[in-house]
């Protein structure tokens, strides 16, 4: 089995695969910067799979470490195409992580909906985005060269929420410091929510599980929901209260 994912998830995918009997799964990543050109994701996935096949690396199952990611359904269409071919005996079966984007699948859909409802004007960070805030946000959006753009991008935002994949500890403290530096640059309060790997892990584990009738998890099934008490326990409202 192959997991082909966004470069922004490389550490997380390797960590999940590196633990608990999933070591036989291959992990490949595409550049994280495709995030900004979501129309290119599906074609790049196809190209990478072709290249791997040419190297003799063919798989029975492929999990895409992507959400919809603003591809306007193109990633889903690609999965559907592979599924049809697979059903006809040609090529791997293919599915993706359920959810609109990584913020949603790390948090899980119910918690993400709850946070977005509570404050739509939230800018989310993952561990990856927090660590690379300067490169991806400050430089990537051109704010480094044109500070006047910061207001145009972020003027309507009210808070930053770090959805962290890392449990308490030294590593977590470093990530929090990056997130705080980023939020400070935006002049926004920071909140921290520990999500773990969320649906990335549950999906990967279920796709990797020995085949029952189908290799594809039922994405319409109710998702593991994070109960509000868990949320309360893991959310640390730093410095500022959540704007209601």
């Amino acid at each position, binding site marked *: 089995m192959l997991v082909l994912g966004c470069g922004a998830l490389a550490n997380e995918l390797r960590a999940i695969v590196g633990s608990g009997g999933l070591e036989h799964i291959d992990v490949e990543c595409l550049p994280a910067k495709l995030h*900004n*050109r*979501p129309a290119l994701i599906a074609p790049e996935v196809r190209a990478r799979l072709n290249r791997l096949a040419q190297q003799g690396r063919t798989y029975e199952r492929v999990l895409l470490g992507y959400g*919809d990611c*603003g*591809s*306007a*359904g193109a990633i889903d269409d690609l999965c559907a195409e592979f599924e049809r071919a697979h059903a006809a005996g040609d090529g791997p079966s293919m599915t993706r992580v359920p959810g*609109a*984007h990584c913020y*949603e699948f790390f948090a899980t859909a119910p918690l993400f909906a709850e946070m*977005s*409802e509570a404050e*739509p*004007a939230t800018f989310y960070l993952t561990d990856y985005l927090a660590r690379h805030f300067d490169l991806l946000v400050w430089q990537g*959006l*051109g*704010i480094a*060269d*044109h500070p*006047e*753009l910061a207001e*145009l*991008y972020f003027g*309507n*935002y009210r808070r930053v929420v770090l959805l962290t994949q890392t449990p308490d500890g030294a590593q977590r403290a470093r990530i929090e410091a990056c997130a705080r530096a980023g939020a400070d640059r935006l002049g926004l309060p920071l909140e921290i929510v520990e999500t773990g790997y969320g649906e990335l892990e549950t999906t990967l584990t279920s796709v990797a599980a020995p085949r029952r009738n189908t290799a594809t998890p039922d994405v319409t099934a109710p998702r593991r929901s994070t109960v509000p008490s868990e949320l309360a326990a893991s959310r640390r409202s730093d410095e500022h209260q959540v704007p209601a």
Partner: protein
Amino acid sequence: MADAATVDSADADEEIDLSALDDDDLIAQMHDDLYDGLGPEIVEGTELLLGRGWGADKVLNEALVEAMRIVGIDFRDGILFVPEVLLAANAMKAGMEVLRPLLAETGAEPIGKIVIGTVKGDIHDIGKNLVGMMLEGAGFEVVDLGINTDVDEFLGALAEHRPDILGMSALLTTTMPYMKVVVDTLIEQGLRDDYLVIVGGAPLNQEFGEAVGADAYCRDAAVAAETATDLIKARRAAAA
């Protein structure tokens, strides 16, 4: 500091005396300046053309709107990315600010009125703002409701401003379906036929526009200006 022998092209550009250019060269230079997001140069060029007797609408169309159209094409083709588009839009905005009072003075009837907003839950507004500006450039009166607009705000604005067109923007897969909530509410209240509805945003497509019951999906701001104009003309012709 660069000495005279090593002046790079950016420095050389700064030397250009806009007032020394004839009209055609000035327009071409303004296209370059808007492309490069140079607001002060756009303001200067705009004032020069006005001083030479150009009408505000002619400056708007030939200098600003045309330049922004080129920016739109290069964005679509992946030559420009969001920061450049945002800088260009800002330069255009600076020019528009000079022209807006003059356009109002001419007393020319707007071609139509549009109420536009980004739907509930969505805070993306760069594309929506650009659409608003290009529609204004095409002669529309634009009422911008901003971001995170819920159905009550849309309906309230429709009742207050009685526009010809309602425009909705969404950039998130999770917020696009809200467009249907708004259209369905219009239908429920028997108001759907009172307005033309146009929708847009990067993750949308033609099929989605049809599914939510919009009159048109527009892939970019230039198309939005054309489509809005065509829709209004068709509706007026049908009513005549």
